[in-house]
């Protein structure tokens, strides 16, 4: 009797834990919820390949968030403008993963712009288009369509809408990189960056704003990073063509001079908030002619990206 009891406990535990273990594996395969073992603990036989992937991941990871440029525009008191947005009709014309990934990034940045300005009504079209493109790229499972749709219809939930949409993009990006689809991930972040700088350049055409101009002038730092990743795929003609367009922008941006003055860093407490203060200074030196050239190359690049 006693043995039967032990057997029953063992069998039940084994059954339940096997279910649990199966569940864990399923999560690892379909989502990025589980934490990765840090790079320092990885024991890979082929370290050179691993380092290559690590370097790529690091670059992709450090590109700015889709909402930062929009936040700057709003902080500078720039009015929202629908005409800057990429259209969402006919997105089914994007019939390659290359175009779908690039434009997913573009629409992601547009959604950030709409969210930042609380344009929740128009956000719905973008949520639907993003869902369609992410499904085509088989990353739609990270895009919480129903929740986003619900939040978009209630403008009081703008913080949640912003958080879920940004974190959905992060999850898609992580999943793509974990599943050896870094090429798609690279296109996604490139699309986000292109739309961000496009919005900024369109704004300075109509507003003489020094802060936004300075942000545009600094974008060579980001583009340099993007080109490192994209050049890994330049044997593919579509990547080669995209790199050619980006190189035109890079040439224009490389004429901008950035002067950095070194300074000490310290930690201080201000009104109960711990602040890391760096006394470093940087100055962007960009002429009007240089800005005009940057705007022109960005417009050409953006047209290249959103054309069917």
């Amino acid at each position, binding site marked *: 009797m006693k043995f039967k009891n032990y057997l029953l406990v063992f069998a039940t535990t084994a059954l339940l834990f096997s279910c649990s273990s199966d569940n864990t594996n399923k999560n690892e395969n379909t989502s990025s919820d589980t934490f990765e073992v840090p790079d320092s603990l990885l024991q890979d036989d082929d370290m050179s390949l691993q380092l290559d992937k690590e370097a790529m991941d690091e670059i992709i990871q450090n590109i700015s968030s889709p909402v*930062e440029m929009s936040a700057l525009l709003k902080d500078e008191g720039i009015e929202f403008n629908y005409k800057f947005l990429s259209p969402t009709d006919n997105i089914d014309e994007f019939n390659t993963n290359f175009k779908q990934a690039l434009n997913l990034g573009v629409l992601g940045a547009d959604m950030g712009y709409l969210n930042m300005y609380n344009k929740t009504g128009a956000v719905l079209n973008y949520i639907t288009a993003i869902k369609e493109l992410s499904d085509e790229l088989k990353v739609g499972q990270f895009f919480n369509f129903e929740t986003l749709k619900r939040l978009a219809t209630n403008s009081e939930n703008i913080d949640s809408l912003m958080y879920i949409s940004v974190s959905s993009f992060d999850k898609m990006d992580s999943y793509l990189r974990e599943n050896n689809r870094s090429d798609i991930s690279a296109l996604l972040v490139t699309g986000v960056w292109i739309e961000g700088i496009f919005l900024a350049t369109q704004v300075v055409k109509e507003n003489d704003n020094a802060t936004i101009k300075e942000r545009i002038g600094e974008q060579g730092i980001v583009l340099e990073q993007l080109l490192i990743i994209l050049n890994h795929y330049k044997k593919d003609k579509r990547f080669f063509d995209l790199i050619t367009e980006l190189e035109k922008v890079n040439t224009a941006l490389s004429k901008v001079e950035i002067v950095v003055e070194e300074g000490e860093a310290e930690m201080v407490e201000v009104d109960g908030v711990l602040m890391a203060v760096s006394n470093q200074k940087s100055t962007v030196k960009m002429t009007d002619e240089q800005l005009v050239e940057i705007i022109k190359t960005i417009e050409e690049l953006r047209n290249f990206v959103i054309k069917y």
Partner: protein
Amino acid sequence: MKKHFLILLIPILSLFVSNEVKAQCNSSLVTVCSAKLSDDATYLKELRARLQAHESGQQMPVARFSLLLNKGNHYRFNICNAEEFEGQAILQLYDKDKLLGTSYFSKTKKHYPSFDFICPKTGVYKVLISFEDGKEGCAVGILSLVNK
């Protein structure tokens, strides 16, 4: 019969307890940490770290991240620990080799849940997450943008 019921119940309960504990060190930790952001901050990125305990003779385990930060932006770094691990996370911000900010002061042994950084120069910065005394731990750092 009661005995059989208890025999079945114990492993079932232990499974639920273990799942609840596990749930702390995954996306729920990100959700909890993000919920701590104040109204004036916009979520930008999450930085997850799950590190084993430091073994003598080995390098101190550290999770490293690169972030592109923009000049003039006011950023906030929050750090949250998973409850099931003893390790207290330390988040440090570097510009190349220069330490700019930290969530922990070793002299006072004081941990801070967050610190702010007004970025003076657009560039790629390094964020390191480790655990005090090299203990095993799980944590998430949240980068947010403080609205002006």
